[in-house]
């Protein structure tokens, strides 16, 4: 009985799919080289998973399409570098600064756009995203302009009794995985909380929620700001991984790529959609990239087909297949019952 209650309590924080994901990503550094890929790719995938999961809080759960999210990723990257150079050479301070800087900027932007929805919202996020992009590329004295902010170090992770050196890609893999795990658990808890339910309700019918007395503006503001904070954290990690912060991630195309990852995987119907999409994107990039320079052409075509024919993405296909299998099983169980058994 008490074990049952405990299991139910745990379910708010964990899920079977999450354990599978943790098992896969946690052991990634051990087998990624065996399947012909390389360790750095694992780091990159995990960082973009964090980014896409946070982005999906906004897109999949609140129904707000942002096409300028790369800006907050970039702000996080610059914040980590600038803190390291000018403020304090500490990993934790740097990552905190990355998260907070993106949250503050995102929170400011959200004040301007949280009363909008749909196409207006998307256009405004593009405008703000481009503004940050141009500022970052022109403010050379701070951001290094087109060259970027170079020589960002991977500082050791102090955890009270010990310090882990993150300069190698193996250690960095594990550190990125730990961050990914923490973010995943927190986001999972968040979307299954009453707050998450309100967000989903706003996605379905914003006007009704407003009439029910919910402060829709505040919820949308919080959703945007939180997803920007996660983007900033991911950006900070990316700056560490790349040993630098570059302006390219802030442009319109990269902002679009995170939308694309989230949707191809099926972020609109599943928590795990963004993770599936991110893995697919990077594996496609490396596999297609081996054969052709213009792999984005093929990826773009694939993406168009997904939107046209399977708009719910990989997770949608999976769910439909699972539902069909379930229906078949039930049909078989009914057929096996002896006639007139009741």
């Amino acid at each position, binding site marked *: 009985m008490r074990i049952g209650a405990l299991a139910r309590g745990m379910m708010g924080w964990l899920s079977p799919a999450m354990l599978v994901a943790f098992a896969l990503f946690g052991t990634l550094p051990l087998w990624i080289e065996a399947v012909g890929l390389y360790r750095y790719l694992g780091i990159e995938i995990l960082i973009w998973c964090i980014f896409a999961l946070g982005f999906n809080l906004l*897109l999949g759960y609140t129904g707000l*399409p942002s*096409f300028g999210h790369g800006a907050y990723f970039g702000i996080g990257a610059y914040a980590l570098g600038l803190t390291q150079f000018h403020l304090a050479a500490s990993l934790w301070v740097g990552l905190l600064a990355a998260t907070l800087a993106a949250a503050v900027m995102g929170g400011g932007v959200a004040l*301007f756009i949280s*009363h*909008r*929805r*749909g*196409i*207006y919202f*998307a*256009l*405004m996020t*593009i*405008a*703000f995203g*481009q*503004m940050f992009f*141009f*500022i970052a590329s*022109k403010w050379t004295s701070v951001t290094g302009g087109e060259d970027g902010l170079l020589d960002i170090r991977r500082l050791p992770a102090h955890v009270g009794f010990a310090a882990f050196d993150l300069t190698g890609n193996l250690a960095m893999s594990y550190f990125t995985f730990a961050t990914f795990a923490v973010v995943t658990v927190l986001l999972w808890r968040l979307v299954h909380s009453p707050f998450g339910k309100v967000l989903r309700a706003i996605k379905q019918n914003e006007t009704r929620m407003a009439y029910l007395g919910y402060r829709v503006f505040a919820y949308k503001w919080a959703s945007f700001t939180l997803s920007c904070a996660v983007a900033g954290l991911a950006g900070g990690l990316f700056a560490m991984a790349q040993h630098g912060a570059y302006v390219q991630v802030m*442009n*319109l*195309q990269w902002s*679009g790529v995170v*939308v*694309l990852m989230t*949707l191809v995987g099926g972020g609109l119907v599943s928590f795990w959609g963004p993770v599936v999409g991110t893995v697919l994107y990077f594996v496609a990039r490396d596999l297609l990239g081996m054969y052709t320079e*213009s792999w*984005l*052409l093929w*990826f*773009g*075509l694939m*993406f*168009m087909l997904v*939107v*046209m*024919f399977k*708009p719910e993405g990989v997770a949608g296909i999976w769910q439909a297949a699972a539902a069909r299998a379930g229906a078949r099983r039930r049909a078989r169980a009914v057929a096996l019952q002896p006639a007139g058994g009741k």
Partner: protein
Amino acid sequence: MDLLITLGPHLLNGVALGLLFALVALGFMLIIGVMEVINLAHGSLFALGAYVAVALVTPEGGLRLAALATYFAFPLPARFVVALVVAPIVVGGVGMVLEVCLRRTYGRDPLYGLLLTFGAALVLEELIRLVWGPTERFLPVPAAITGGITLGGLVYSVYRFFASAFAVGMIVLLWLFLQRTRYGALIKAGAHDSEMVRALGVNLTRLRLLVFALGTALAAVAGIVMAPIWGVRPHVGVDAVVPAFVVIVLGGVGSFWGAVIAGLLVGMVVGITGAFATAWSLVSMYVLLILVVTVRGRGLLGKKSVLER
């Protein structure tokens, strides 16, 4: 007063830029109006227009067939005019293909239309890179509209005058088309309530195809006229389409003259900041947008529309 005079050339640059932004924005807005789709491929189609024009004007632009030797023997002005006519038609055709792909997203979340066109933008940009390579190209301009004229001691570029006049002509033509023709009336009605237009017996499928072709052809026209000013690169479209977003939100979605006024405003602001702080000229338009939209939520001349669902 002296300051105003020295700003002259910058203002001319601003006007030319603003009118071309308005042209891109108007095509974009027609598509938003009738299909409720944000066409993120608009920038790539802008670039495609410029590339097709380069191919039609210079023999090095991609077309190297022997049969075309007689064509390239034509004088440059003739080829330039051919490019101005043919390239938008080609791009309009590509736009039609895109519209056919988009059909599956109608009636679903508008997000899907946006995503499909984002995919199309990636594909078009990569195709351009594949066909023409990543290096920058230049569109030669007939001698009659190059060079500069000196007014009051300052040099004004003739081509900017041409670009402004051409854009004004296109805007007026578009306005007359929308105001004076049957199809124009249908497009306006479609932007108001497309389902009602269908219920009244209009072939909505054909109307949408036409609007998409028209909107993308306008992007191509702007791309060609802009090409000698900006140069032609595979990703040049982003530089045009993002200001067009700004112009639309600033002018108010669905307002023809709102877009024109906002285009001029954006062009002026970019031109004037360009005179004082070149690096920051492109940021200034976003500041303008934020200032205006904070005060007037729907932009300068915007009305409440279906897009705010």
